[in-house]
């Protein structure tokens, strides 16, 4: 079993990381009071922007192309999230509906453009290379588990997680952002522009989701084809599963990463091959439901999340 865990660990982490970064984005958005069900679409946008950029740049430069692609994804995600911000913050539209629209637009328009560019709607690139962290990967137990076969983007994401945690809980911006998600009127009467904070949060969520989509592309997929296979929704589930807290999210995404990797690679693992596939595949989803039920009593979503903030209302 230990052997298996070691073997799948790098892949589980690779699977979890885009979820994690996207869920962090979702965290910012929801903690500021805006439900962002459009994460899926924003991931697609990010993946698309990165794919286009990288496919253009890769022939003329080497490793930088991937990083520039990630940057493009961040920008594209941020930019595209403005659509959601505008509808749900400025127009006070229903946030779930606006998010659904984002998902639909992203899926359609990226393939439409990609089709015009490549003819097929698919864009292929050369992904990142994995590497071992020297010294650390020699550490017993965790070395093999965490420091072997890693992607640079994994460390980038973990760095962002740390920063995100710090910003959320230690900085002025974070304090205001969390307050916006609980009691926006209080923030407004303290002289802070709630709309500005919420815009910023939604843009951050777009940037993170865009990055998430691009990480899928530049690590294990290598191909843009107009979808991220529901991972945006899974990130949303991880956010709720993780109780709207950075470390909770880390745990939730790690769980999804391991559960789903075990499920997919079970076929090739003799020890697991006798467990019915359906049990393995549905396991993460069933556990999520159970956890949601267990937490339902103590669950504390941001109080104002999902509610448009009306300047005039107290």
């Amino acid at each position: 079993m230990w052997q298996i865990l070691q073997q799948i660990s790098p892949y589980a982490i690779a699977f979890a990381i885009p979820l994690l970064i996207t869920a962090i984005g979702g965290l910012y958005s929801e903690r500021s009071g805006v439900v962002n069900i459009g994460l899926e679409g924003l991931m697609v946008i990010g993946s698309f922007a990165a794919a286009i950029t990288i496919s253009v740049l890769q022939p003329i430069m080497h490793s930088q192309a991937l990083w520039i692609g990630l940057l493009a994804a961040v920008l594209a995600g941020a930019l595209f999230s403005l659509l959601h911000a505008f509808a749900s913050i400025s127009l006070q539209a229903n946030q779930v509906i606006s998010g659904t629209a984002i998902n639909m637009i992203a899926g359609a328009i990226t393939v439409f453009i990609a089709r015009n560019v490549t003819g097929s709607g698919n864009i292929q690139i050369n992904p990142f290379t994995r590497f071992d962290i020297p010294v650390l990967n020699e550490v017993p137990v965790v070395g093999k588990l965490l420091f072997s076969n890693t992607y640079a983007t994994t460390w980038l994401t973990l760095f962002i997680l740390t920063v995100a945690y710090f910003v959320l809980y230690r900085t002025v911006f974070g304090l205001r952002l969390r307050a916006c998600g609980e009691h926006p009127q209080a923030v407004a009467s303290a002289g802070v522009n709630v709309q500005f904070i919420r815009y910023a949060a939604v843009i951050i969520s777009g940037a993170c989701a865009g990055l998430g989509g691009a990480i899928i592309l530049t690590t294990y997929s290598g191909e843009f084809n107009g979808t991220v296979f529901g991972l945006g929704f899974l990130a949303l589930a991880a956010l709720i599963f993780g109780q709207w807290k950075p470390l909770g999210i880390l745990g939730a995404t790690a769980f999804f990463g391991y559960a789903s990797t075990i499920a997919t690679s079970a076929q090739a693992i003799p020890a697991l091959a006798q467990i019915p596939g359906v049990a393995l595949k549905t396991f993460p989803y069933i556990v999520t439901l159970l956890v949601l039920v267990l937490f339902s009593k103590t669950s504390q979503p941001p109080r104002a999340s999902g509610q448009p903030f009306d300047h005039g209302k107290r």
Partner: protein
Amino acid sequence: GCSSTQQSQAPAAGSLMVGMITDAGTIDDRSFNQGTWEGIAKAGTDFNFKPKYLRPAGTTTADYDKEIANLNDAGYKLIITPGFKFENSIYTAQEKYKDTKFVILDGVPHPGNDYSKVNIGPNTVSINFAEHESGFLAGVAAALQLKTGEFGYIGGMEIPAVQRFNWGFQQGIKYANANFGTKINIKAENFLYQGTFHDVAAGQQLAAQMYDRGVNVIFAAAGSVGIGVINEAIARTKSGRSAWVIGVDVDQYAQGYYDEGKTKSVILTSAMKCVNQAAYDMVKSVKDGNFPGGKSLVFNAKNDGVGIPAKNPNLGEDVSSKVKEVFASLKEGKLTVADKGEGLLR
């Protein structure tokens, strides 16, 4: 290999209207759809017409019917459809649009699940490939090149063409072990069907499992899942651990580049089936007025319809020449490969 080398004559008056409908996956899947399209496109340049492909919304018969009607109504009088899923659609379309010609690759027109009612209309050609021979050659080549080691196979969905690749591959390994003294192991746990043609991540994870367990070569006949396998092999090779992949359908060598200069690839060889050749030939036959309507054609070693690429930079000279000999025996019929899975893994 299927090098469409026949040079065409002077372009004829461009009145050919040739359309294609893609199977599950996209036109640039680097395998089945793309191969077919390349054949048609090449015919397009050679015979000076502008081909068209449509991508159906889904993979049900109704979706295919719809696109066939669209092509037909738009004036496309030769419609090429790659994939067994078109069998039911072509069965009805050949009746419905009698003055349109159809080519179905990898399948035979029939209603429902009923193979006893196969009917290849006078305006239809059904083309099938001897994937088992292709897999066989790839198996022999890989075995000869590595001599010892552990081989694995990852298929997409468990459909006949994909299965035949697998069965032929195993027979090829066994043949090499028996006749050329190679010592290649195969284990049941390393021969599996992932279950989709799209799950890139799963392809990578399964490949990783196999490589970690000591598998040296994976034959991936699995669409995008295969891309995941190739990605994993590239990642390993870059970090200095060897990992080989056998490509499928077309020469996938270029998919497997792992160096900056784009010369070295993880693709050991590819088990090809000449869909491009088949598509090209059919267009040409229409142009030349000798469309073999009503026939069922088989592309196999005999007519150079399957094989491994002519150039395999990763295979040694001696290996290539030995494979050529084996290929010749297949051609002559001295050697046969079973298209059944009896006595084999999966």
